[in-house]
């Protein structure tokens, strides 16, 4: 019994561990054989990462980035969700605004960065605006999509039984739209992260974006790899978080 369980676990996890080791080995070998301006081995990247961490640089800049990301994302949810729900309830308004939200959802928001720079300059505000613009439309778009999925019959039945507005929200509107909103929040997390780095690259240079820029300007390839590794791991962790949030709410969808 026991050995069987061990065997099963081994079958499940061995390929993953092996692929991780193989990837690390590949990186190490390629790095040792390539010009150090192009690629540095994993070991050197880790050493550089440790240096950046020990000097306190990484922690301080990561905190800076996190503040920007969380502020922008929180604003996007705080605006996108109520607005989406309002549109869900007021049908005439929703029909009118829907196409514009769809257009803005599909527009690459990075293209607006030069305008934001010219108008608002280099402060914290414009950077938050960038993260906000990247993140708000997925929330809004998906909330509206959820509102569309509510069968009109449900609202009619609720009305026919003279349910109050608050009961209608509690029993029909929220349960039907929230799961979609959470899909939007998951997308917003991913897009917001792109917005965060874009703001740090193209507006005033701060946070993790600044660390990468300085490293690349100093031809410190190890530093570039170290920060990319950190942002990558951050991206993976945030995506997991997004999926978790989405699945928690998806339980009552269908």
């Amino acid at each position, binding site marked *: 019994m026991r050995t069987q369980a061990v065997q099963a676990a081994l079958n*499940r996890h061995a*390929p*993953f561990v*092996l*692929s*991780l080791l*193989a*990837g690390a080995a590949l990186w190490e070998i390629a790095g040792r054989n390539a010009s150090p*301006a*192009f690629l540095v081995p994993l070991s050197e990247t880790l050493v550089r990462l440790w240096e950046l961490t020990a000097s306190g640089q990484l922690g301080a800049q990561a905190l800076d980035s996190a503040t920007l990301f969380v502020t922008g994302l929180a604003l996007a949810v705080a605006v996108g969700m109520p607005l989406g729900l309002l549109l869900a309830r007021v049908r*005439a*308004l929703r*029909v*009118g*605004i*829907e*196409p*514009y939200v*769809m*257009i*803005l959802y*599909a*527009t*690459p928001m*990075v*293209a*607006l960065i*030069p*305008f934001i*720079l*010219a*108008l608002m300059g280099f402060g914290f505000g414009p950077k938050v605006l960038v993260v906000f613009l990247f993140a708000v439309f997925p929330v809004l778009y998906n909330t509206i999509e959820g509102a569309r999925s509510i069968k009109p019959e449900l609202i009619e039945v609720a009305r026919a039984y003279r349910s109050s507005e608050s009961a209608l929200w509690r029993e029909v509107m929220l349960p039907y739209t929230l799961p*979609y909103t959470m*899909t939007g929040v*998951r*997308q917003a997390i*991913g897009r917001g*992260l*792109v917005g*965060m*780095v*874009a703001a740090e*690259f*193209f507006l005033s240079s701060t946070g993790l974006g600044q660390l*990468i*820029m300085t*490293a*690349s300007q100093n*031809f410190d*390839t190890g530093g*570039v*790899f170290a*920060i*990319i590794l950190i*942002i*990558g791991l951050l*991206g*993976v962790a*945030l*995506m997991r978080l997004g999926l978790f949030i989405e699945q928690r709410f998806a339980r009552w969808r269908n």
Partner: protein
Amino acid sequence: MTDAAISRHQARAWLSTAALSRLVCGLVLLLSWEIAVRAFAPAYVAKPSGVLAAIPRVIVDPAFLQATGITLAAVAEGLAIALAAGIPLGLAMGRSLIVDRSLRHYVNGFYAVPMIVVLPLVSLWFGYSGAARLATIVFAAVFSIIINVADGARSVPKDYLEVASSFRSRRLRAMVDIVLPSATPYLLAGLRLAAGRALIGAVVAEFFTAIGGLGYFILYNSRTYKHDEAFVGVLLLAAFGVGFELFVATSTRRFLPWYRRDEHAN
């Protein structure tokens, strides 16, 4: 009136109120933008009337046309590379447990990396050139194609493959004739995502490396305080984004009518 005529009449009435409320909302949005800019912002800031006036000038401007052509060609080339690399890899991941388990974490990991962070790296590798932009586009696009094709290949009904193998079809044959067609809707969903990301990738690469293209056109014009002209570029990008959404949506409905787009696509 017959029932059909009544419902047709109702449909038309509804359609016209929908169109009307869209028109009204659009006008209100544009008008508040116009008023806000006129009241609070400096004269060079883009406003609807200015952008409208700039459109006829910009769309015949050879610099604009050339920039658009360059960026679109780069996006198309990058998407072609991403498809050529992503489809076989996705099929292999979807049909082989070993391949899937060894590659899945890398693919998901790279997909979650905000593509924009690779810019300093690709500009280090390829210089400030079109190759850096192409690499960014491919990186932005390829992983959503791999993930979606793998999902599609995984969801092929078992019966089909059993029939194929009991008729002694070779594996490659079954891959091309059965797995690939039934993964096509997923591929289209992946392509829709990939195209949006590719467009963003092209623009950020042009911002970063200052190589010619639509992104650089926007950057340059906004720096020289020609915001109305620059905004025409933004409108074009939005049109591409929306156009591709619609293209994929209608071609899925037209050619794969049995398939309902699944909600979990990012």
